[in-house]
């Protein structure tokens, strides 16, 4: 360490020392150059030739990507009760290669816990050559995990080797399977719709508002090691955007009641089908939109295909006598009639080559306008309607909403048919005036009658609370309700009083439609039906009853339509009692007290 030898070595033997260092440097240089060129080539190979593939492979080696499923929006009724909601479900899957040995035991557990068919399941569990079998789908997750644990425990008990016992049995396992639950089953199923097995919307509002309800799936990529996330590792997350909920104007409990009453009415009269609509008079909110036959939205596969849509919106029929309300309202509005205008009704009325009959045989009658409506006389209505031109009647019926969709947001709604007045002729004018030769859907007709209940102002109906945009881009909901005047307030009041004579047992056709203690306005309809095959009246009928209560301060409009009853009943005897039951339930449920005013008592004869 002394300085002397150090300085000597620096100075001493310069030639040989420098030369060997020089050679060493050269050798090092060559070695380093070689190594660096190898690195360079490798770098070029990695970065220059196909950098993305290598990057992706590197990512894949330790990265896990999980789809973060967006939760589908709930469909709620007007009080916030769920009509359709999404829950985390699981599917149970078996690997028959592993389960064959325990087939009987596992099948018994599945039959006990999930109520599956023992023999079906056993066949699946022991299927030769298969490694993947669905045992059950859309099982609530707690139940599914419970079942898997149950199976694992049972299998463990049969294994004696202590080492093998520690390994959990993997023959039956679960995978995510989002589950759409319709807690109220068939209640409002025709409106709400359902999802198919693959989770795609198939019908009803589920389909019409699919984009809104579905949301957008997100995904998360992160590095994993040994099943755990590596902290501070690379990770990227795209948050899922959950579907937005959809609130309806439907009242679930009311809807249930209406559906049961409707089903009783259809089944008692041995009819083909039926629809019923309940509207809030002032706001046009659809409180109930019922159809029968219907289906359980949890198991749509078991229903007939024709029952899956909404007949109330997608089916058309000729309204018959209920439409007389609109004709006579138009006449009242034009000032051509009063409720007491005398009309002489002959036994039959020839119009050009046709003869118009009434539903009941009679001689010459002396009815007032009220009487014509209360007795539902076709001849009387035809005679009264001669005072209005076809064009004016057409204009009024259009204003009542006939021939145009109500646009509540469901797909496949029909326009109904209101032929242009120029094509009517005399016979057409007569038949249209009493509701034949035109067709409507149930909601359209209910909306038209509701215009009278609402003092002559038509309120567009809505099924959605607030505002929502359908997939087709149509904005619907209570925020988009519009009103327009169809007839004067005076005409509406007159009509409401005239309609009070219909449920009156002494004067009208529908004593069964009364609600004791309340003033009820209504109108029966018994229309001839156009057959599917012959495109002519085939002797079957559509019977209906539309009405509102309390007559002097209407709160609700109810319309019941029954197709093809086979017990010989009419609108009064089939539709009337159903109307009365629904209306009395409504009035009690919403706490509408009787107005306590004197019921209308208009003369029906002169």
């Amino acid at each position, binding site marked *: 360490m002394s300085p002397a030898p150090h300085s000597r070595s620096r100075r001493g033997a310069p030639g040989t020392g420098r030369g060997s260092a020089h050679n060493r440097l050269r050798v090092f240089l060559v070695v380093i150059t070689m190594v660096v060129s190898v690195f360079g080539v490798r770098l070029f190979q990695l970065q220059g030739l196909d950098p993305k593939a290598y990057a992706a492979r590197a990512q894949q080696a330790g990265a896990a990507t999980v789809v973060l499923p967006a939760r589908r929006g709930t469909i709620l009724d007007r009080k916030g009760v769920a009509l359709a909601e999404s*829950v985390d479900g699981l599917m149970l899957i078996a690997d028959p290669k592993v389960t064959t040995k325990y087939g009987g035991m596992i099948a018994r557990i599945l039959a006990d816990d999930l109520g599956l068919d023992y023999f079906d399941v056993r066949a699946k569990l022991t299927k030769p050559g298969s490694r993947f079998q669905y045992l059950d789908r859309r099982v609530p997750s707690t139940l599914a*995990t419970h079942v898997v644990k149950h199976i694992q425990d049972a299998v463990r008990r049969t294994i004696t080797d202590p080492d093998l016992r520690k390994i959990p049995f993997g023959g039956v396992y679960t995978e995510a399977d989002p589950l759409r*639950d319709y807690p109220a089953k068939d*209640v409002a199923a025709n409106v709400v719709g359902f999802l198919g097995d693959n989770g795609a919307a198939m019908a009803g509002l589920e389909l019409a508002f699919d984009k809104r309800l579905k949301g957008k799936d997100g995904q998360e990529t992160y590095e994993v090691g040994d099943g755990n996330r590596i902290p501070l590792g690379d990770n990227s997350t795209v948050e899922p955007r959950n579907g937005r909920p959809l609130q309806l104007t439907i009242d679930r409990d009311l809807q249930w009641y209406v559906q049961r009453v409707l*089903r009783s009415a259809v089944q008692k009269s041995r009819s083909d089908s039926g629809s019923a609509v309940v509207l809030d008079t002032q706001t046009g909110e659809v409180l109930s939109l019922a159809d029968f036959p219907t289906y359980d939205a949890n198991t749509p596969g078991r229903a007939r295909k024709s029952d899956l849509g909404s007949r109330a919106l997608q089916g058309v029929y000729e309204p018959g006598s209920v439409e007389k309300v609109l004709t006579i309202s138009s006449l009242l509005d034009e000032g051509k009639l009063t409720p007491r205008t005398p009309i002489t009704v002959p036994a039959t009325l020839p119009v050009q080559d046709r003869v118009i009959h009434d539903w009941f045989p009679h001689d010459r009658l002396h009815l007032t306008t009220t009487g014509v409506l209360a007795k539902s006389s076709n001849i009387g209505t035809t005679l009264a309607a001669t005072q209005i031109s076809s064009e004016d009647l057409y204009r009024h019926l259009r204003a009542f909403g006939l021939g145009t969709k109500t646009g509540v947001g469901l797909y496949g709604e029909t326009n109904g048919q209101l032929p242009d007045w120029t094509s009517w002729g005399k016979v057409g004018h007569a038949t249209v005036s009493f509701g034949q030769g035109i067709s409507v859907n149930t909601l359209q007709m209910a909306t038209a009658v509701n215009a009278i209940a609402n003092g002559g102002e038509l309120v567009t109906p809505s099924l959605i609370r607030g505002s929502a945009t359908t997939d087709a881009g149509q904005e619907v909901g209570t925020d988009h309700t519009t009103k327009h005047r169809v007839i004067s307030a005076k005409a509406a009041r007159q009509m409401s009083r005239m309609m009070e004579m219909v449920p009156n047992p002494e004067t009208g056709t529908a004593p069964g439609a009364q609600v004791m203690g309340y003033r009820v306005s209504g109108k029966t309809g018994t229309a001839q039906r156009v057959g599917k095959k012959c495109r002519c009246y085939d002797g079957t009928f559509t019977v209906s009853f539309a009405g509102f209560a309390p007559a002097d301060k209407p709160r609700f409009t109810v319309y019941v339509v029954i197709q093809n009853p086979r017990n010989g009943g009419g609108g009064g005897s089939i539709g009337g009692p159903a109307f009365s039951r629904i209306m009395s339930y409504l009035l009690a449920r919403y706490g509408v007290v009787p107005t306590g005013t004197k019921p209308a008592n208009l003369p029906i004869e002169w």
Partner: protein
Amino acid sequence: MSTLFSQARTRIPRFADAAVERARLTVVPSRPVDAPRAPFVVLVVLLLAGGVAGLLAFNTTMQQNAFTATSLQHRADALAARQQSLAMDLERLRDPQHLAARAKKIGMVPPPNPAFVRLTDGKVLGQPVAATRLDAIRINTLPAPKPKVLAPKPRIVKIVVPRKADQKNGTKKSAQDRSVANDRAGRAGSNRTPSGSQETNR
């Protein structure tokens, strides 16, 4: 570099040799250091050891936290699933059909006429009518229609026992015989089709 250096050296004149010799850099003799080295070494060692240990501890806690996070996530998932299935059970109990069935079981019917009591003066609004059995509504769908005859008469098919001679002739003939017998039985029965009787035969 080394060649350049040696050329420069050759060009230096002799008289400058001494100056060059003087200007040449020499190593400064190291001054004896008085400060003790030990504390510094200890400090460095401590810093290093502390850093390594700290890093290790940090990593360990991070790992531990990851494990905890995973297990908590599992627990949260399980609890969420449990909450959901409980909510589903609740929905099932709140289902109007379920409520109606239970109400019906204890003999309840919907009220036929709504009526109200005004609390301010005790006046009854509406016409209260006592509910009766007749006010009940059907809450379940009608049962499937029953067949007209509940206990159909048993079908008796007579089969002619093949004789021993036929059996010797072979199966074909006996089969023919049997179908003839079936036909006969079919005709004897009221409205039975031959195919039906064959099924019974099987």
